[in-house]
């Protein structure tokens, strides 16, 4: 692999809430076109890391550059223009909207019509624009196989479907970097397999770089190009999945010290 500049560079990020150090000097690179997973026990700071990238939190120290552009200080709602999209760990759909409208909200920053041209609809070209974007949204709906629920109210859907709609909404942003916070949590095996396939397709066919938090070790090891392990807000390992799995520190912190690589034993009581 030739040396390309990293798509996302995180260096020396520290984040604390009062006396709680959520993140301490975390640094990593995400290269264009890879699936990068962040793993670690509960409370290790994984979601905090994602929140720093997406702008929800402002880190106390360090720098985050995306496409060589400094992200610290940039408002969350400006980051999607640069090409960052994300999903949430706990469902964060607009629960009274239809699935279609939810996904159309993802087009918000790409649409030009405003409250004036939107109110006039037929006159100001808003209809034409809406319909063009609708066609693109339908591509996403097709790809994620949610055509049968496109007119359903998001809040009435099952958990697995909602997760999928949330992914669709993030994809609708047309991001270069998509942040997935536990995309497979709470899913059954079949849904997990589907989701893994979608993530691989997004990465390989749609050309999106993926940063993913996931607890299912099987999935992480199978689809990630590289993995980073956080524990108590510190990065304890990073590299190829096999290397990380073999790392004794990781086994101790996260996987448990069994001889065989147990799939998903999560240590308890480690809320940092």
């Amino acid at each position, binding site marked *: 692999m030739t040396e390309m500049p990293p798509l996302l560079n995180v260096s020396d990020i520290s984040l604390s809430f009062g006396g709680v150090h959520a993140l301490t000097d975390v640094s990593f690179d995400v290269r264009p076109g890879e699936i990068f997973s962040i793993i670690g026990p509960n409370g290790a700071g994984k979601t905090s890391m994602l929140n720093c990238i*997406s*702008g*929800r939190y402002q880190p106390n120290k360090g720098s985050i550059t995306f496409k060589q552009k400094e992200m610290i200080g940039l*408002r*969350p*709602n*400006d*980051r*999607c*223009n640069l090409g960052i*999209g*994300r999903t*949430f760990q706990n469902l*964060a*759909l*607009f*629960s*009274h*909207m239809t699935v279609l*409208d939810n996904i*159309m*909200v*993802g*087009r*918000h*920053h790409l*649409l030009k*019509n*405003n*409250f004036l*041209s*939107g*109110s*006039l*609809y*037929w006159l100001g070209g*808003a*209809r034409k624009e*809406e*319909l063009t974007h*609708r*066609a693109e949204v*339908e591509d996403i709906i097709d790809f994620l196989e949610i055509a049968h629920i496109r007119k359903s109210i998001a809040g009435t859907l099952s958990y697995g479907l909602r997760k999928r709609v949330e992914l669709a*909404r993030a994809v609708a*942003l047309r991001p270069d970097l998509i942040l997935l916070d536990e995309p497979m949590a709470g899913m059954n095996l079949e849904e997990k397999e589907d989701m893994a396939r979608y993530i691989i397709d997004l990465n390989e066919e749609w050309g999106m770089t993926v940063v993913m938090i996931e607890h299912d070790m099987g999935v992480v090891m199978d689809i990630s190009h590289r993995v980073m392990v956080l524990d108590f807000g510190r990065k304890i390992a990073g590299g190829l999945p096999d290397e990380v799995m073999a790392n004794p520190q990781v086994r101790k912190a996260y996987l448990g010290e069994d001889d065989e690589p147990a799939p998903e034993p999560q240590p308890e009581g480690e809320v940092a």
Partner: protein
Amino acid sequence: MASAHSRMKCGEFRTNYQQDTTIFPTPLARRVAVLSVIFLLVAPSFLNPYFLNLGIQIGYYGIAALGLNIVVGFTGQISLGHAAFFGFGAFASAWLNNTTGIPVFFCIPLAGTMTMALGLIVGIPAGRIKGLYLAIATLASQYILEDFFSRADWFTGGAYGAMANPFSIFGFEFNNDQRYFYVVLFYVVIMFLFGTNLLRSRDGRAFVAVRDHYLSAEIMGINLTKYRILSFGISSFYAGIGGALFGHYLGFVSAEGFTIMLSIQFLGMVIIGGLGSVMGSLMGTAFMVLLPELMEAGVGLVGHNAPGLTHALAYIKEMSIGLAIILFLIFEPDGLAHRWKMIKAYWKLYPFSY
């Protein structure tokens, strides 16, 4: 016979996205809506002024209620100052017409725009605070504006109130109920089309997104501060238009009409009609305007047997509104719009319940 069968459709078939984004879900609904507007166009020729007056009231209050629904129902904020914006629109239109001589025809949209500007300023706290605190902030704006109405003699005529000239086009005055009905009908159709369009395009979706989950709305590129304030601005525009229509209808605008009571009535309209429903705003307004009239008619029927009721009529009217709001909150929190949907579904699905 076979040819007749082949032309028969057994459902709605949409073959492009345009057909899937229409205002009315089915051609039938569209035809019913067009027919009801046509009915209203001919209505003044045979309806008596009493009903026309009620229709006009439903019209201008309905426009303002739609505005309130945009901020409360769609953006999920609270406003206790809607009557003040309604009043500001009424005064602004009268003032513009009286001082500059701009025809009333243009004054109404201009008054709407002025009210929108005011709403954008008063809405600034909404960018920062939520819930109960915002309710208090809007309550403050209600009282500040009420005070302004009674003191700003240059603008409102102070305690004397302001005269508002009748609506006219090329010298033709819409100075009675029959004629003014058309003005209000025109504005109702236009404003409700605008509202519907707004809510099926980018900024309308952004409002609902801010209401349903503001954290993820922000990640989707929606500037929360901007949209929270904007929804106040747009809602004030509707209130201003409604107020201006009110002013030119009565011919006289006085500060006493725009109290907190009216603000609460507006809230009652959108709650009864259905938060987050465009047509619900009109249904709720119709309910709130007609309910006291029904009470009056009911009391009139039994009045000669129970003279006490006739004396208590004013209280009965007020109490019935309060009772209606409470009953709706308990039994139909989604309002008349939802009930209407249920009724339609019932006919469609009968004899099955799902």
